[in-house]
């Protein structure tokens, strides 16, 4: 049970840590001050969620690893995030597509976990759920605005959705560890999450006059450490300071 819980907490933490790092890359690069602050807020929300999951994971593991050790001391194959969150920012359509697909997953995820049997996890999820609902409002607003905007914004938004689509199924990849927690009413059922996620996606893409991709290919494997070529580069930039100057502090 504790081994499965540790795995699950690392998956939750890694999803948020890596998407926070990706959004953080955009800070100071957005074309408007307003959007710059918006991506910084998104990034910091995800970072805060990652810290809470990592801290709990470190306690469950009981090996003395804190949030920093888990975020900065593990290598690529030890990261269990879904491959979706490590995908490059690309243009704003691509970034928005990735964020929307993540948000549409995290809202039902956190709502389910908040009602779960593990009190500590439920508490973290209850706080995160409020943030996720705001994120979904922000990202789905942009999907509709760009999709139902000009020819150029429609083309880019559709391209962003198409690019991210094959990686989204990894959010719902499950294994024995998750099934064990699901039986104990601690984890969320990925099949149920996927149903709600698909309904949200169909609704928003419909309002955005965008097509739901029909590509049946699904790139999974992130949950067991099999990543795309991008994660190593993300970790290199994210971890170099900690690895070069262990224990450095502000």
């Amino acid at each position, binding site marked *: 049970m504790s081994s499965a819980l540790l795995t699950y907490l690392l998956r939750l933490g890694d999803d948020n840590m890596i998407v926070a790092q990706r959004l953080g890359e955009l800070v100071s690069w957005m*074309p*408007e*001050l*307003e*959007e710059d*602050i*918006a991506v910084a*807020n998104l990034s910091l929300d995800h970072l805060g969620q990652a810290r809470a999951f990592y801290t709990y994971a470190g306690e469950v593991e009981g090996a003395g690893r804190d949030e920093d050790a888990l975020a900065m001391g593990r290598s690529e194959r030890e990261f269990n995030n879904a491959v979706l969150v490590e995908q490059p920012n690309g243009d704003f359509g691509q970034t928005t597509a990735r964020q929307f697909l993540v948000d549409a997953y995290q809202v039902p995820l956190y709502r389910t976990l908040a009602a779960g049997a593990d009190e500590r996890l439920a508490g973290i999820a209850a706080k995160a759920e409020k943030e996720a609902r705001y994120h979904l*409002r*922000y990202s789905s*607003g*942009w999907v509709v*605005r760009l999709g139902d905007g000009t020819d*150029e914004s429609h083309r880019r938004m559709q391209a962003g959705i198409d690019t991210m689509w094959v990686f989204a199924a990894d959010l719902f990849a499950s294994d024995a560890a998750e099934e064990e927690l699901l039986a104990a009413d601690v984890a969320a059922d990925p099949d149920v999450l996927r149903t709600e996620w698909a309904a949200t996606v169909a609704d928003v893409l419909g309002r955005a006059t965008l097509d739901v991709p029909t590509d049946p290919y699904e790139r999974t494997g992130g949950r067991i450490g099999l990543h795309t070529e991008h994660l190593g580069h993300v970790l290199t930039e994210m971890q170099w300071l900690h690895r070069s100057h262990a224990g450095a502090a502000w």
Partner: protein
Amino acid sequence: MSYDAPRIEGEVDPEIEGTRGGMPLWEVFVRAARGLNHVHAGSVHAADAESAILAARDVYTRRSEGVSIWVVPSTAIHASDPNEQDAFFEGDHPYRHPTFYEIPEEVGQM
């Protein structure tokens, strides 16, 4: 809040009327607590009212400054002319203040 972004070949950035080559400007009013008035906090650039509210939330309520936000298109604000300030505001009308009048003692406390 706009600058000349690098363009890819063939990319166009149509000028939107009433903007500085970017997104329209919105005035932001934030209410700090129930019972208080919405007070002007600043302005944001945003494509539409919904995103103006989200931008205002991110920019002006980062530290729990508010419980309610209004946004108004800046073009809807009509202002007095600063060059007419003297004609508008500088009249000498002391008798419009209640303290101008002396209350006869017979009146007593008002």
